[in-house]
């Protein structure tokens, strides 16, 4: 009897599993130390390759299986210590991971694999020379015997001989303590010498210490990891520490959490339903509170209690439902070490990447959209921030730069910091470039902060020479816009010669937000609380019209454009005179803008309903929500509004160009 099994039903799982395997391989390879690799890391990489090979063969992807076989054999040689790890080997292995990823993508989409590309990698893999003798890291030993050492029958020479059996030995004797031979203090039976010894060996400290065991107490002895080995061990230590912290932060839940794969549509449906529940609950709550009919106070009171309980449960349910969509930002961070490494290699720079807070969780959509800006910022940090090793040395910095990337949660926001210890922003260069591009006039007095922020202007490219790394036509303005589109903002702090730090603030989720309700006539609009800088009464003397078109408002020594929400959205407002309106200053990320409304109402958490999904995308609006009383309120997208309204402020008639409701 033959089992008629349709293998294709398992393909999706295979692709997903292989993708994870590739990620494990990639991060393992990036952690693989040249010379004496950590056997645990080698094993991880090997196992991943091995599983992919097996599964690919089973599901009929012969080319993937064959390719992985070659890869696996090499990894097996590394594992059994027949082959040392060289930089070159790691490079080729990483290229193979790329190759595998490509083949998997092709298999997934059913497209033809370019044989040439695969053959090229295979050729490299097969021709990579076997480095038999890995350059070992080692121990720095300071050995200063007491004068009487020889009188116990001990002999430094014999100690050196034993050390030599462990690896390469470099001995520097120190004669400085030898008294003059003519002097009376010189005793030929004493040992006056000291030795500084470098032992290149992968021997453990116990092995080294054992050699000195008979002279312990008869000498000054320091055994330390030699430079390169120390770096390696410290790096590992740091990684372990981080993992520990992450584990603590995650409430004891480590990386090996049990999980099931769920189609994202199912989750979104669930979240939408919970959103609906929140709205119904809020309508009910509104109805109960509104019930001023005195006839049954008892029942109303009880009802209120129940509704309050329901409210609490609903919010909790919503929060938990949201968490399903949350993923740890590590998914994005994992890509960065490879990026930094490749960039450094192609630019001839050295940089260490220090990642922390990878376990911070963020909404899947936010995660997907933050990847590109993050990659761009890292690219910039390596390309423009970190100087060449020579320049760094000249500036008295360590040759290898440091890029720190961290994520943390603050309230309903996630904070991502990208910090480098590179050259910092060159204000002179930025000013010159901004003038050259006509972004500023030649006469403006700008603070350092303002100068730094010029790099966010569209049309500004800091690369004085367009390299193939950055300067791909994507500027910091795009980075900023992407972040603004997510309802977040980006700040920059830089010190010339010291480095730069970018701080990105993002909402944890795009599904709910804290909203400020504004009334314009009979309509209610909502502004994200995160964006609000200040609210104030309008003062006439602060109002100016520029070129008879744009209305500007003098706000804290700064002129900001004024947008009359009634005009912008075509709503008829209450106020006849502008003085009756209220000013809400919001930060779009690029600039501050004054919004003019009739009244400021309450603040509340609102469930964002996508206009795109239910109707169509409308510029200037981020979405809509349903309020407690059942009315639909639009959510203002301040950056979008500014883009849409460029030049269309108060005194300018909105006219046909504004399709806003």
């Amino acid at each position, binding site marked *: 009897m033959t089992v008629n099994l349709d293998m294709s039903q398992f393909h999706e799982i295979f692709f997903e599993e292989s993708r994870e395997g590739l990620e494990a391989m990639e991060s393992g390879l990036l952690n693989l130390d040249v010379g004496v690799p950590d056997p645990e890391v080698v094993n991880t990489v090997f196992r991943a390759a091995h599983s992919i090979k097996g599964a690919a063969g089973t599901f009929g992807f012969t080319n993937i299986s064959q390719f992985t076989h070659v890869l696996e054999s090499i990894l097996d040689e590394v594992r059994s210590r027949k082959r040392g790890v060289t930089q070159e080997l790691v490079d080729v292995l990483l290229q193979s991971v790329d190759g595998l990823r490509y083949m998997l993508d092709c298999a997934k989409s059913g497209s033809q694999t370019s044989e040439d590309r695969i053959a090229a990698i295979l050729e490299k893999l097969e021709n990579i020379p076997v480095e038999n003798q890995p350059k070992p890291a080692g121990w720095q030993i300071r050995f200063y015997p007491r004068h009487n050492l020889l009188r*116990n*029958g001990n*002999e430094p020479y014999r100690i050196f001989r034993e050390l030599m059996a462990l690896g390469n030995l470099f001995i520097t004797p120190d004669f400085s303590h030898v008294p003059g031979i003519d002097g009376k203090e010189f005793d030929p039976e004493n040992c006056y010498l000291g030795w500084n010894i470098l032992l290149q060996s992968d021997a453990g400290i116990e092995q080294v210490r054992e050699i000195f065991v*008979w002279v312990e107490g008869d000498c000054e002895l320091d055994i330390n990891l030699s430079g390169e080995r120390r770096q390696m061990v410290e790096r590992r230590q740091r990684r372990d520490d981080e993992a520990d912290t992450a584990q603590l932060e995650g409430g004891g839940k480590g990386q090996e959490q049990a999980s099931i794969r769920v189609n994202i549509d199912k989750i979104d449906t669930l979240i939408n339903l919970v959103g609906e529940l929140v709205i119904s609950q809020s309508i009910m709550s509104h109805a109960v509170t509104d019930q001023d009919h005195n006839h049954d106070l008892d029942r109303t009171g009880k009802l209120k209690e129940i509704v309050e309980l329901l409210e609490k449960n609903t919010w909790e349910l919503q929060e938990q439902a949201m968490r399903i969509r949350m993923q740890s930002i590590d998914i994005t961070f994992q890509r960065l070490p490879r990026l930094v490494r490749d960039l450094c290699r192609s630019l001839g720079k050295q940089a260490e990447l220090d990642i922390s807070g990878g376990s911070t969780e963020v909404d899947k959509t936010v995660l997907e959209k933050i990847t590109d800006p993050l990659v761009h910022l890292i690219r910039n940090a390596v390309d423009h921030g970190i100087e060449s090793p020579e320049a760094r040395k000249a500036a008295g910095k360590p040759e290898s730069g440091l890029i720190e990337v961290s994520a943390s949660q603050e309230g309903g926001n996630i904070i991502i910091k990208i910090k480098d210890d590179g050259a910092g922003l060159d204000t002179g260069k930025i000013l010159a470039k901004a003038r050259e591009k006509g972004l500023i006039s030649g006469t403006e007095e700008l603070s350092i902060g303002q100068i730094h922020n010029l790099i966010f202007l569209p049309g500004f490219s800091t690369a004085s020479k367009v390299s193939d790394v950055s300067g791909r036509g994507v500027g910091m303005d795009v980075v900023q816009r992407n972040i603004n589109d997510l309802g977040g903002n980006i700040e920059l702090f830089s010190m010339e010669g010291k480095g730069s730090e970018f701080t990105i603030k993002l909402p944890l989720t795009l599904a709910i937000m804290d909203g400020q309700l504004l009334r314009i006539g009979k309509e209610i609009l909502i502004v994200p609380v995160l964006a609000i800088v200040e609210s104030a009464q309008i003062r006439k003397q602060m109002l100016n019209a520029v070129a008879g078109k744009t209305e500007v408002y003098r706000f804290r020594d700064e002129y900001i454009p004024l947008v009359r929400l009634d005009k912008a959205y075509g709503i008829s407002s209450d106020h006849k005179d502008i003085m009756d309106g209220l000013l809400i200053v919001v930060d779009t990320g690029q600039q501050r803008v004054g919004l003019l409304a009739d009244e400021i109402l309450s603040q509340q958490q609102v469930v964002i309903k996508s206009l795109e999904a239910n109707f169509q995308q409308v510029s200037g609006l981020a979405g809509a929500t349903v309020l407690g009383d059942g009315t639909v309120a639009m959510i203002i997208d301040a950056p979008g509004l500014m883009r849409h309204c460029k030049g269309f402020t108060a005194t300018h008639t909105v006219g046909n160009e504004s399709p806003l409701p």
Partner: protein
Amino acid sequence: MSDKKIRMLLVDDSASMREMVSFTLKGAGYEVFKATDGIEALDFARANDVDLVITDINMPNMDGFTLIKELRKLPAYKFKPILTLTTEDSSEKKNMGKVAGATGWIVKPFDPDSLLQTVRRVL
């Protein structure tokens, strides 16, 4: 190895230990002289030169520590390697040996391989 055999003096009051150790050392090509206590050993050392002394600590007539101290007074033995035979847990004994002038120690119990390995460290 050179034409001249490496000579060792082995001091132990236990006949079985003496035989086992000397058998092993002889098997490795060394010339071994045996003594049953410190006095006998010291007498031998005054008249003969060896390349290594291996001595037990607890012995009648003259113990190992005293033997080492006396040996160090002899010009020919001033810088000679002297190893003590000691039991694992006696770090105090190890120390006393060092104070007396011992080079190192061989921890009892031992197998022939580790004995030879230790001996080679000081040759």
